[in-house]
């Protein structure tokens, strides 16, 4: 585990509202003010590389001093996760030779939840190992982003129920053991240990997502109805999940209105720095 756990910023919103551009500008703003920053794109349609005019990949690439960027490949994380799961399954159930595992895993690859969990593993990796002050995430389309963010709460809900059921099973086992042998000691319950282990890990993730001093959700929208409506739905869902650090940010405003004015062709470090300087007060208000 790294010595410093980063502040996390999720950039969310409807496609095309300017999530990538604003996340890149915010990353540069922090780096220029002395913070170490890792900007990660979770969107399968990456364009951070275009904005910074640099080729990015799975490993962090230095952009300027204190700022690195990475384009996460969700497909690669899904593949690795399924390969690991298949290996574990084969080791535990080697005797099930008739069970058509290949077919099963082909189906699982497209099962709901796999893509969101693949992103969770990528997030864990960046969060634990990046050792930066700020971890900024340019998020994928809304449906996948919300599945990803809901995963800790949903998993904890299920684990709680499974824990209760397992406790009941253990009580029955104890009674049987007492009746049969007159003794109370129980053999080790690996399933319960597994449930407890998973609960602890999902609680840690949930704590990161719901700590509004550490984690904030920046919902980007444009001054038009559709992106605002979508952000309204995102905001409601985030509140349902118990997350409170939510800021709605208007991008591509007309001149003189609050928010970030539209600038055509905003890419490359020099242009980005000039933009930040011109709109310093808006960034100062946004960044906390």
């Amino acid at each position, binding site marked *: 585990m790294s010595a410093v756990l980063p502040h996390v910023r999720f950039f969310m919103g409807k496609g095309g509202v300017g999530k990538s551009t604003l996340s890149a500008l915010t990353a540069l703003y922090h780096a220029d003010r002395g913070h170490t920053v890792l900007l990660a794109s979770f969107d399968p349609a990456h364009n951070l590389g275009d904005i910074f005019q640099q080729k990015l990949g799975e490993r962090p690439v230095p952009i300027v001093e204190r700022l690195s960027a990475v384009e996460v490949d969700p497909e690669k994380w899904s593949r690795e996760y399924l390969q690991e799961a298949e290996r574990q399954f084969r080791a535990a*159930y080697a005797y099930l030779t008739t069970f058509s595992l290949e077919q099963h895993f082909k189906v699982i690859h497209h099962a709901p939840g796999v893509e969101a*969990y693949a992103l*969770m593993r990528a997030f864990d990796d960046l969060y634990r190992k990046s050792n930066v002050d700020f971890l900024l995430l340019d998020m994928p389309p809304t449906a996948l982003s919300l599945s990803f963010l809901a995963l800790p709460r949903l998993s904890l809900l*299920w684990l709680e129920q*499974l824990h209760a059921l397992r406790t009941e099973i253990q009580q*029955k086992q104890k*009674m049987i053991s007492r009746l049969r042998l007159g003794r109370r000691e129980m053999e080790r319950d690996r*399933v319960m240990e597994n449930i407890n282990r998973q609960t602890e890990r999902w609680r840690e993730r949930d704590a990161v997502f719901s700590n509004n001093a550490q984690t904030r959700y920046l919902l980007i929208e444009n001054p038009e109805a559709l992106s605002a409506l979508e952000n309204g739905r995102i905001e409601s869902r985030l509140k349902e999940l118990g997350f409170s650090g939510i800021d709605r940010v208007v991008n591509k405003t007309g001149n003189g209105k609050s928010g970030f004015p539209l600038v055509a062709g905003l890419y490359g470090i020099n242009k980005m720095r000039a933009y930040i300087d011109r709109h310093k007060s808006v960034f100062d208000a946004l960044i906390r």
Partner: protein
Amino acid sequence: MSLFAGIKKFFKGLDQQHRHKAIEDLEWEMHELQHIFGLLTLGYMVGLPSAPLPVAWELLPDMPREFAIMLARLDTAQNPLSEQFSRLDVS
């Protein structure tokens, strides 16, 4: 055998019979709970709503017993009443 020893043996046999029956019932209940546990974690394989895939997948290597119960249940799934009747000694 003295009368006292005979009575003692009778009650011991009665006790064993009741213990045996109680264990049998408890084992059946525990089996059913394990079956429910299996369904809640492996139900996605047969199209039932179940725990999120990552949770279920991580549990899987530690639950061969539930997995075996699920597979064994396939044999009796078509005729659950006969299983109940045989457990209750109804012929």
